[in-house]
């Protein structure tokens, strides 16, 4: 079957690629675009390690076809920082030691950004439920939640 030509916008830049019909957006990011920051932990949308934001919506890229990216605006972990300046979430994750092996971290950061975009003042419970789709096996989530709450406070100017 012929490959599909897709044009889209990724992390603020125009992007285009060729993909097979069955390739997921995760496959495309990692194998066609060399954006390996998004990870495959399960391939079935259960772990969140592949989280990206598509037209403002948090999505598991392993559950999306590459072809569906056509005409959308996508944010991946590679686009969270502002050039050289880390996003407050990234900075707080480092300060709070909210990562150990770091494998789930890209997905958690993208999901956290989507949380704070939707709700700049989440409670701890709201943050925990929002991030329930991002599995972490190393940290027990404690320092992740602390970092997210701290970043939210900083972004609110507190």
């Amino acid at each position, binding site marked *: 079957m012929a490959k599909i030509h897709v044009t889209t916008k990724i992390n603020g830049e125009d992007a285009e690629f060729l993909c*097979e019909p*069955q390739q997921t957006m995760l496959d495309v990011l*990692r194998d066609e675009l060399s*954006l*390996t*920051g*998004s*990870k*495959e*932990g*399960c*391939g*079935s949308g*259960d*772990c969140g*390690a592949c989280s990206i934001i598509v037209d403002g919506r948090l999505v598991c890229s392993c559950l999306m076809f590459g072809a569906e990216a056509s005409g959308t605006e996508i944010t*991946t*972990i*590679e686009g*969270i*920082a502002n050039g050289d300046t*880390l996003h407050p979430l*990234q900075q707080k*994750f*480092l*300060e*709070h*030691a909210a*990562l*150990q*092996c*770091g*494998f*789930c*971290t*890209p997905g958690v*950061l993208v999901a956290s950004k989507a949380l704070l975009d939707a709700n700049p003042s989440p409670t701890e*419970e709201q*943050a*925990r*439920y929002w*991030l*329930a*789709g*991002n*599995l*972490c*096996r*190393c*940290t*027990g*989530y*404690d*320092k*992740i*939640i*602390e970092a997210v709450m701290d970043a939210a406070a900083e972004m609110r100017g507190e």
Partner: protein
Amino acid sequence: MNYLGKDVQLKVVGTRPIRPDGVEKVNGRAAFGADVAVSGMIHAKVVRSPHAHARIKSIDTSKAEAVKGVSAVITGTDLPDIPSEEAFVGEGPANFREMSHNVIARDKVLYDGHAVAAVAATSAAIAEEAARLVEVEYEVLQHVISVEEAMADGAPVLHDDMFTQGVDPKPTKASNVAKRVEFKLGDSNAAFAKADVIVQRQYKTQPVHQAYIEPHACVVSYNPDGQAQIWCSSQGQFMVRAFCAKLLGMDIASIRVMPMEIGGGFGGKTLVYLEPLALALSKKSGRPVKMVMSREEVFRGSGPTSGGTINVKIGATMNGRIVAAECETILQAGAFPGSPVGPACMTAFACYDLTDVTAFGYDVVSNRPKVAAYRAPGAPISTFAVESAVDELAQKLGMDPGELRLINAAKDETKAAYGPTLKNIGFVETLESAIASQHYTSGLGEAPKGKRRGRGIASGFWFNIGGESSGATYVNEDGTVTVVSGNPDIGGSRASMGMMAAEVLGIEVERVRTVVGDTASVGYSFLTGGSRVTFATGMAVTQSAEEVRDDLCRRAALIWEIDADAVEWRDGHAHPAGENAGKSDPLSLSDIAAKSGRTGGPIAAKSSINAQGAGPGYATHICDVEVDEETGQVAILRYTAVQDVGKAIHPAYVEGQMQGGAVQGIGWALNEEYIYNKDGRLDNPGFLDYRVPVASDLPMIETVLIEVPNPRHPFGAKGVGEVPIVPPMAAVANAISNATGLRMPNLPMSPPHVRAALDAAKA
């Protein structure tokens, strides 16, 4: 290297700097095994058995080989036949022949998911398609899953040559019982006569997977001259090299392993699955080969830890003193022997001061994946049973469970149940801290209608090991420092290595960068496991930093043309001392580094050691739960982990180990298990139905770090990574018992099981 002492003023050790590898982990640039791509790389997929137990009658790879884009297909015949050879590997004794047979089946498949062939092709999609065309003719055999089934009379035998070791007389009939082990002090059988109260119960746990979020992944390039390079995620680059050399019949020097970042291991990546297959495929195809497991393959094809059946009997006098204790632990090893039944027995009663105790157990094979190490292997299982029994004893005696433990606690000079006398341990300190804590002394609060609240306490122990480690310290031309660690970093150890070097050199930690070396770039290091890296590799790094510091003083003396012993190192500078004090300005690292050539050459030191004297770790955990009587769901309301950590080099990473381990234990307690169907196939090989804890399941995990320094480490460090997983199952079970009045002897205590227990009690 001995402890520098409590009075030494530490400037870096004990603080919380940002880890040197942190930014690339938060911006997606850190390279894990599956992120590697090399020129000319092709992709491979494994063909796995759909049967739990079967003889392989034939394998026809011709259709697979004919697919356009397929470069090579291998089966068991492509790996050399190696003799049976015992070795001590990551999680305990193992056998290389069995390891080879686990990596790819020979005449029999022994579990659903056992590898039988592998296909390499120009794309992963083609490899998968071709893998489906490999035709394997199986003669399906009867299978066994649980230890009870495996030990039953007439059970199908997995290995014709398995005769139970450790029993007298040696059996003449093959069985599924690989060995029996026993540890005893005194005579527990007779000592039960002294007891006023006896508790006796059988407990059952299920196998659980380490469930690291990163599946196994590697890229392997075998060159026609017999030299190979491996990029992989693992807990030990030297282990990968050694095992691949052994399994493929290659020289160790012919293989170079580049350790990529590892996305979780917890013991499950202390061995090889894909690398030997990728090597054989790369050799056959003449191309570099990439292999990545899917999540389903991780569950079906890689080792969980054992499940088991544990029988515990404890006797005590009315004042709470335990006078006799016995524990029988029967653990599943999976398809090949090697369950952690030895450590399970040794750790079962390690928290207590007992004179008459027997711990014995059996290592039993069955048709499930071969078990691999999982954080304090064996200890969480036997401790779940023993700590539940101690709780039951407290209930029977009408005593506070914390106080009961205190009465019987192991202290310095206590003889451990597995033999030696314990020294420099901090168990009592963790108990006293837990009992006095705000958590333990606070009320539970009113439970809403239809729910019941309870509190549980449990303790645990793990040995921690030292072993062979290498590290190096290099002073760069501008005075910054590069530290090379021989161990993959799975918990933030790079930060701690850099901190120890910075402390020794008296400089800011930001001027030190720590990297993990590949097998050709740093001395041999035993793998990352056993909670040994901060202790042993930290010691090697500290030693190399001290050698560098001494060398810097010698260079300064040369520069000043004074005696070498007339120089002292302070605050990151060489100072002239003695009668020359004050005569010259101090020299910094960059000053001295600028003249390194003239004073003798590059300033560098490496250290390869065999660190002994790792201190054991103890922990006490407190758990509050709320049980929903209608659904059987158990919510964790509050959790506190108290642990003797020796010395927290970087407290945030120590807290992280305690929190992560506690949460794995909570998952083990409440939800995780393998569900096999009647054909011996795994029904839940994915994260949807293999339920690990998620963020909304948990409260904050409070941590209390008790520091009883280890006299065998310069900064007093002990291992901390494994102990935290030992107490949680019992802490949760005891809390549920406190809430409902029901003992929960079977794991997991998932909603259907809790509901069934509640219903049975009402009936």
